[in-house]
């Protein structure tokens, strides 16, 4: 049995979450049992101006219903066209792809660091942890955006009963500034505890989070983006340099890497 499949699956639910943010629920995905948080799917967008597939992190899966969810923001041509798709349209999905997050020990404090459209894989990670019996009170959910409009799915996060720390650059929702400031405060206040960081978001943020982890010796993982022609390790188009030397492919050696592993 192959581990990865490419198949046409249907949009069963489409939601416009806020402004340019959308959620698509798709089914039936044959490899639903293989999916883990941190993995992504590669979608083919049938249009004249789109040649490559586009990568989207799994934002959730539902094994009983056979559904997967992706959440995206309209960014360029591909996502614009994707946002025009409707319920009962189908898309060709290749996946699940990439190396998933390694779950923390149950005793550890977990710092989630989501930035902008880096949210989806972390939503899935936390949902999975809660489902697996992790205590949501040990999960500190930092989520930063430019402005209030970039903090989506607030109720979904609150429902998971984690400690929610929204941060916006303009202070229009939650704390004002960048998430690394309250994160560093949290780290300093809880020096005695064992902690793990999980992060996904814009490059600048990942860099800051990576440094934070290195500075305080906190282990954790970050999920990277890269241009991904194939998504499965064939083309070598998505490489990042490794601290130990050499290159790693973001699509199949990642997208999840340990803090301190890659040169950012």
């Amino acid at each position, binding site marked *: 049995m192959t581990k990865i499949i490419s198949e046409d699956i249907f949009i069963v639910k489409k939601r416009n979450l806020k402004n340019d943010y959308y959620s698509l629920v798709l089914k039936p995905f044959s490899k639903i049992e293989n999916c883990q948080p941190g993995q992504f799917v590669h979608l083919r967008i049938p249009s004249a101006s789109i040649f490559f597939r586009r990568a989207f992190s799994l934002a959730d899966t539902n094994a009983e219903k056979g559904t997967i969810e992706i959440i995206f923001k309209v960014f360029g041509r591909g996502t614009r066209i994707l946002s025009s798709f409707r319920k009962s349209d189908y898309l060709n999905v290749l996946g699940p792809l990439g190396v998933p997050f390694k779950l923390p020990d149950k005793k550890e404090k977990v710092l989630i660091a989501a930035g902008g459209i880096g949210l989806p894989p972390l939503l899935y990670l936390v949902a999975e942890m809660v489902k697996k019996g992790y205590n949501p009170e040990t999960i500190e959910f930092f989520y930063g955006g430019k402005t209030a409009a970039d903090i989506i799915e607030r109720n979904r996060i609150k429902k998971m009963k984690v400690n929610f720390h929204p941060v916006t650059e303009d202070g229009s929702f939650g704390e004002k500034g960048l998430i690394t400031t309250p994160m560093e405060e949290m780290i300093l206040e809880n020096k005695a505890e064992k902690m793990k960081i999980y992060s996904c978001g814009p490059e600048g943020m990942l860099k800051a989070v990576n440094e934070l982890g290195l500075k305080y010796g906190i282990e954790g993982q970050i999920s990277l983006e890269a241009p991904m022609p194939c998504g499965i390790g064939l*083309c070598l188009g998505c490489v990042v340099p490794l601290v130990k030397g050499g290159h790693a492919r973001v699509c199949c050696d990642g997208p999840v890497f340990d803090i301190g592993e890659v040169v950012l």
Partner: protein
Amino acid sequence: MTPDLKVVIAGVEFSNPLMTASGCCGYGEELSEIFPLSKLGGLVTKSITLHPRLGHPTPRTAETSCGMLNAIGLANVGVDKFIAEKIPFLARQKTKIIVNVAGSTIKEYVEVCARLNDCEPIDMVELNISCPNVDEGGMEFGADPKMTEKSIRAVKKVFQRPLIAKLSPNVTSIVEIAQAAEQGGADVLSLINSLVGTAIDIDTWQPRLTNNKGGLTGPAIKPIALAMVDAVYSHCKLPIIGIGGIASAADVVEFMLCGATAVEIGTALFIQPDIPVKIAKDLKTYLKDKKLTSITNLIGKVRKYK
């Protein structure tokens, strides 16, 4: 009766005319998670060089209209690690193994091919004398008939199995280069490699590739590749492996009608990695519809206008 997809090239039998193109299937491991490699007639590895190469920094690919640019820069593990770590896996696959070799000097080509000659599971070597993505030479070999002939002749001395010369499309006359390769002793010709191209980010005003330019591939270039296969077939006796933008059984039929005995599929694997399996199936349907018993009935059968 199921039509026969088997083809024979330079004495080597391929279960079907479909191979994966160099640089588009790594060393085969990843693709084997999508479908059994025995579904392929053959697999052509990423270009192997004498020493390991990291290639150019990211971004080294860019999307274009019906195609893509790449300037990977011949990233590969180097011949020694390739033989030690990649060949054992490849040897277990029930498909023909073609190793693509690149270099910046004739000496380098010769040295790599000499080592590959001792490596039993390898069925053929494909000489990449046409990569547009290295400054040190690659391209020049393929653009100059004399260098083409000389490098192939040198490699033929050290590599005893069939040798494929992979030709560059970035030339005034590919026929002239093909004839030089034939002269040098090549057993097979494969064409085409990518066309030099570039793309600019209009926000940053920077090229979309750190190498400033790269190679254009994918469906966009198919008509060019097809015309070159047609021209070479009309002027050369060597068997041809057609390459360039192949993404469907119809594309394979076009290439074979123009004279290709087999084809390599590259960029299409990135869009639809299991495409060779679908193409093999569609080819059988096509042959059945046309009441042909063997795919070899197609080779060179284009009915040109006078």
